[in-house]
């Protein structure tokens, strides 16, 4: 901002020309005077210095001028010299003159270069702070503006002259003035400070800003260097986010409510639906015991009632276990799959007894998941394989693993059982979905739905391939 002032101080203006002429005239007068009085010692040589310094310092190509001046003097002396000694003296004088002029020239060139560098540095730092997108300024320790960038003028709407010597509080909204005052103290004491506050423009507009300051001690003086960033967009985004968050919270609350309802629903299924079922069953059995005169038909009706009630009980139990599967907390760990499969097959020994089954179990990699849940899933799949191969003279059940590139382990269970039609593959994993009649194969149709839910909760996938009467393959992928 005030760099041009300094530039004028170093440039040669009309006053300097006058000074050069005056100094030169003075020097010439003194020299002539000394000549007239015959001071032909070394001393008068020193009287040239003002001329040298004046020439070199203030005039362009001062050194050349000095040399020409001394040569001119030499010519004058030689032209009028009556004595060789005078000529020698003049030569010595000129050599001293030129040497001194040279030294002075070198010193002043260095100085000029330093001044130019300073100016360049100044221009560079001005350009730098002007290029910053934020408001940027330097204050003295009382908060008065010393320097600032163009953005400062543009944002605050103040003219350059107006900003000079105003305090930072002048561009702060009324309600934030106290805050900024305390921050100014903080930055002087602590060395840095930052805050959000509203910037007040000259035309009374209030803009949300984020200010920060650091203290700088330069040349024994304390300066506060500050920056301010327009956070209007951030504030608006924050408002939007707050709105979204509130919305999200409402949804979460609704979801929690729905979850609670679901829980109370399953509670009511567990308690309220089972009670009448138990009554039907209990009184039917009591009827069976007391109605001794009931004919064969009546007895059959009662048996049917009891069977249906029992089936309904199983359905309710399955539904409950399915709902529990979606709610219970998971405890994950590494599972030795081979051991798990072995245990399950042992557990299912009632199913395998007396049957001709060829087990083909590959070496299986360990998987990561909830042991109890995955055990249930694999039990369902293996029990299914056993169930649907029951009519085979020789059942063949294969359990293996497919190498997969994606960070997951894919296990499969293949049987040569009843299989299924691929066009119904989508309903295979649905709740209470069955592809076989109950007379053919028993079951409620919850098993595969449970398998699917368990695997999905592990972040994996399930799918199946099958052909009617040629067996089925079920695939389970679990992330590693």
């Amino acid at each position, binding site marked *: 901002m005030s760099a041009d002032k300094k530039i004028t101080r170093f440039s040669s203006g009309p006053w300097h020309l006058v000074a050069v002429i005056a100094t030169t005239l003075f020097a010439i007068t003194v020299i002539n005077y000394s000549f007239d009085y015959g001071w032909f010692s070394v001393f008068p040589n020193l009287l040239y210095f003002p001329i040298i310094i004046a020439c070199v310092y203030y005039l362009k190509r001062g050194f050349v001028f000095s040399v020409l001046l001394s040569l001119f003097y030499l010519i004058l002396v030689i032209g009028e010299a009556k004595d060789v000694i005078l000529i020698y003296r003049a030569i010595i004088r000129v050599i001293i003159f030129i040497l001194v002029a040279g030294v002075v020239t070198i010193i002043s060139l260095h100085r000029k270069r330093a001044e130019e560098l300073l100016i360049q540095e100044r221009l560079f730092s001005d350009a730098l702070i002007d290029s910053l997108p934020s408001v940027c300024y330097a204050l003295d320790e009382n908060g008065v503006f010393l320097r600032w960038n163009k953005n400062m003028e543009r944002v605050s709407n103040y003219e350059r002259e107006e900003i000079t010597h105003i305090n930072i509080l002048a561009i702060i909204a009324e309600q934030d003035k106290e805050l900024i005052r305390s921050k100014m103290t903080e930055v002087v004491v602590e060395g840095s400070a930052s805050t959000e506050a509203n910037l007040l423009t000259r035309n009374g507009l209030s803009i949300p800003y984020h200010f920060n300051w650091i203290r700088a001690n330069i040349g024994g003086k304390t300066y506060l260097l500050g920056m301010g960033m327009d956070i209007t967009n951030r504030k608006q985004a924050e408002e939007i986010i707050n709105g979204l968050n509130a919305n999200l919270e409402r949804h979460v609350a609704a979801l929690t409510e729905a979850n609670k309802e679901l829980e109370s629903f*399953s*509670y009511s299924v*567990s*308690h*309220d639906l*089972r*009670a009448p*079922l*138990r*009554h039907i*069953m*209990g*009184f*039917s*059995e*009591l009827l069976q015991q007391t109605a001794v005169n009931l004919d064969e038909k009546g007895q059959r009706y009662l048996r049917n009632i009891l069977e249906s*009630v*029992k089936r309904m*009980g199983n359905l309710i139990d399955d539904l*409950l276990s399915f709902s*529990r599967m979606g709610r*219970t907390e998971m405890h994950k760990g590494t599972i030795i799959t081979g051991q798990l499969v072995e245990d399950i097959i042992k557990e299912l020994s009632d199913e395998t007894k007396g049957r001709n089954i060829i087990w083909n179990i590959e070496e299986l990699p360990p998987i990561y998941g909830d042991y109890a849940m995955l055990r249930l899933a694999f039990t369902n799949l293996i029990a299914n394989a056993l169930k649907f191969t029951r009519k085979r003279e020789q059942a063949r059940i294969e359990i293996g693993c497919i190498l997969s590139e994606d960070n997951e382990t894919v296990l499969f269970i293949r049987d040569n059982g009843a299989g299924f039609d691929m066009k119904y593959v989508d309903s295979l994993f649905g709740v209470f979905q069955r592809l076989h009649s109950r007379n053919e194969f028993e079951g409620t149709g919850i098993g595969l739905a449970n398998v699917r839910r368990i695997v999905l909760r592990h972040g994996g996938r399930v799918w199946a391939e099958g052909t009617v009467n040629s067996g089925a393959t079920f695939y389970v992928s679990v992330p590693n």
Partner: protein
Amino acid sequence: MGMPGRILLVEDDPKDEELTITAMEHFNIVNEIVVARDGEEALDYLYRRGKFAEIPSGNPAVILLDLKLPKISGLDVLRQIKEDARLKMIPVVILTSSREEKDLVSGYKLGVSAYVVKPVEFHEFIDAVRDLGAFWAILNEPPPGSIRKLKR
């Protein structure tokens, strides 16, 4: 085997009550049963107030407690029993339809003696009631102060 103790059956459903009593008829412990139809009645009986004000003192040998009850829930009845120094020694067996883990956990946390889920099939149900009756009302030695025989 001592004399059968008195059983307090807390059950709001008359059909369940009938089935339970019928099951107990098989084992001749029917006249030892007092029925409370909700949580409040159960507490009235235990504190001998309201319609139970006239009964002789003494705690039942065992309480068979349903969870879902009108007015005061089974778990709240259980909590009050366990908070009262005079009642907390009475063995309490939860006899319910609920298999929910949260009920199981709350029940055991409150210090229930046993948790029995009513089986759907009647013959299993009478087996369960027989075992319960046999164990708690006959085999188990109740805490001092329990009534061993209902005097009418």
